[in-house]
């Protein structure tokens, strides 16, 4: 597998750039400072797919274009530009399969939207398999349905985007066998203004960068947002009570704040246990930075490290049996692994003179990290079993990697012309997205968990 394949922009992308970009421009242009998605590199092997504008979708606009964008951003699908579509069916029974086959389409998504009273809408979509639709049928036999997936929903207009993301995930899962992340959220810190007028914000946006909401704002530094496993809370570091550096936990739905760590010295680098009941923390109250586990209910503290070195950036394994953390006990920052059962610690990283900010992927088989080689900081992934390390990015100041809950994409912070921006790269390095902010500096992204049940969207069947 070529981890640093430099995919040249494919001809299809250039050709479709105009029309697709125009479509994308419509919902990217925004007077407010929202994240804008650009796909800088893509799979050559992205699967051709067509997302036909849904019949009657105008009141929910943008709708089908959100689905197209989600699938495109996964790097695994190449949506057909609207002006290339031979027809705009609303039902699979009314489709001309040959027309789509001629364009090389394997799957087509179609749908229809019907208004109901009280700003409600009925939305039906069908995922159609073109080749199934073309299969010759035995005489007197019932033709197999070309529809791979179909579902009907009743929603309020305000939940249109949410539903579009959910449909994207259903389609993505059906066609790839993998969990989709279109319905997830991302949190990040943005800094607006400079010097005297600086404001720090903790923002939560959809995974595609839209609908950002400010969860917290402060004149002083906010750092290290960390999602609770159930997605209802975010822990973060606040300098609000400077010179105290504290860890706060904010409940997103209500905005209520709890100060969970305010010991003398630094209180920082929060990381949630998989059951959401504990936080690993970096505290320097006992002389220098060490890792501790805080039980959120009892407030009991368990100390994990006992070394004069800097110990920080703890992260739990998905099964809760281990922590990884950064320590410079060996002379330079490297990642170490602590096993709760045995109390033993061993070094995990050996390549490069700096390895930090380790994060497990959701299946626990790999860790992503910041790795420095020859003075340049990159995002890298290391396989736990083999110890093999692969570099995923090639700019110079890449940091704060956060892996999507399906393990496929990594969000990270980097600098473009000195400005802090977010970028994303796929776990195999092939797909790169950039998310430039129009104002201010964006950093420290944290990818939220798969939402359990989507409120406001109910299948009617």
């Amino acid at each position, binding site marked *: 597998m070529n981890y640093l394949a430099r995919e040249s922009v494919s001809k299809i992308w250039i050709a479709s750039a105009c029309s697709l970009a125009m479509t994308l421009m419509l919902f990217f242009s925004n007077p407010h400072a929202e994240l804008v998605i650009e796909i800088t590199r893509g799979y050559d092997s992205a699967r051709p797919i067509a997302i036909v504008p849904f019949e009657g979708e105008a009141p929910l606009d943008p709708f089908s274009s959100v689905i197209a964008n989600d699938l495109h951003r996964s790097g695994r699908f190449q949506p057909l530009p609207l002006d290339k579509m031979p027809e705009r069916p609303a039902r699979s029974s009314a489709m001309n399969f040959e027309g789509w086959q001629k364009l090389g389409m394997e799957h087509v998504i179609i749908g229809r939207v019907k208004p109901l009273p009280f700003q409600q809408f009925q939305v039906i979509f069908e995922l159609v398999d073109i080749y199934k639709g073309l299969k010759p049928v035995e005489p007197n036999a019932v033709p197999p349905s070309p529809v791979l997936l179909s579902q009907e929903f009743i929603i309020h207009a305000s939940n249109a985007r949410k539903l579009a993301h959910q449909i994207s995930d259903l389609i993505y899962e059906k066609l790839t066998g993998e969990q989709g992340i279109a319905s997830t959220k991302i949190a990040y810190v943005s800094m607006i203004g400079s010097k005297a007028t600086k404001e720090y914000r903790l923002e939560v946006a959809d995974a595609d960068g839209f609908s950002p909401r400010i969860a917290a704002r402060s004149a002083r*530094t906010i*750092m*290290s947002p960390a999602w609770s496993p159930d997605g209802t809370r975010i822990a973060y570091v606040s*300098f609000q009570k*400077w*010179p105290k*550096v504290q860890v706060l936990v904010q409940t997103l739905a209500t905005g209520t704040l709890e100060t969970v760590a305010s010991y003398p*010295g*630094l209180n*920082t*680098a929060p990381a949630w246990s998989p059951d959401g009941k504990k936080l690993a923390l*970096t505290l*320097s109250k006992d002389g*220098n*930075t060490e890792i501790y586990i805080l039980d959120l209910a009892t407030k009991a503290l368990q100390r994990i490290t006992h070394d*004069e*070195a*800097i*110990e*920080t*950036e703890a992260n739990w394994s998905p099964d809760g049996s281990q922590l990884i953390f*950064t320590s*410079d*006990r*060996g*002379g*330079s*920052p490297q990642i170490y692994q602590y096993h709760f059962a045995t109390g033993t610690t061993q070094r995990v990283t050996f390549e490069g003179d*700096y390895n*930090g*900010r380790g994060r497990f992927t959701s299946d626990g088989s790999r860790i992503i990290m*910041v790795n*420095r080689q020859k003075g340049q*900081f990159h995002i890298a992934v290391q396989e736990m079993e083999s110890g093999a390390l692969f570099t995923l990015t090639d700019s110079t*100041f890449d*940091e*704060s990697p956060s892996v999507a809950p399906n393990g496929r994409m990594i969000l990270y912070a980097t*600098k473009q012309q*000195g400005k802090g921006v977010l970028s994303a790269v796929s776990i195999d390095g092939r797909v790169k997205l950039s998310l430039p902010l129009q104002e201010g500096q964006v*950093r*420290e992204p944290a990818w939220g968990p798969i939402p359990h049940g989507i409120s406001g969207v109910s299948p009617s069947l």
Partner: protein
Amino acid sequence: MQSNVVKLVVVAIMMSTFTGCALFGKKDTTSSKTDDGQTQGSVETSGIGESGTLSGTALEEQAKKTKNVFYFDFDKSIVKDEDQTVLQTHAQYLAESSSKNAHIIGHTDERGTPEYNLALGERRAKAIAEVLQTQGTKNGQLTITSYGEEAPAAEGHDESAWALNRRAEVMY
């Protein structure tokens, strides 16, 4: 390797505190410190330059005019020799009365992860505090904090800016 050198320096500072041996004071030729400079509240000094003996407000003014930003090498928290000397002025001022306080803030340049840099900034502030403590400042007089890479002095993205950001500041 670097960690071992830091440990050695820290141990040396600690030992000099206990043995009353002014390990770094010997470099200063302009002020004559008594050899038992660790005696609390009775440090005798002679002034730097032509000012003669300073105390009280004069000493406070001098301390506040003295260089209070100290720079570090990349990834390091070792206080430079020339800074050990400068810190004496601050220590003298603080040693006058245990009710005097100073706030030491450590910083780093932007390279490296924000959390590691928060810890490294604290380590730099602690290194400065330890030098002051060998010269009579009491633990309770110092507040140690870190801004990590979050409050750069210079906004650039090259070595000239980074060098200005790797620092610890003594604030009154």
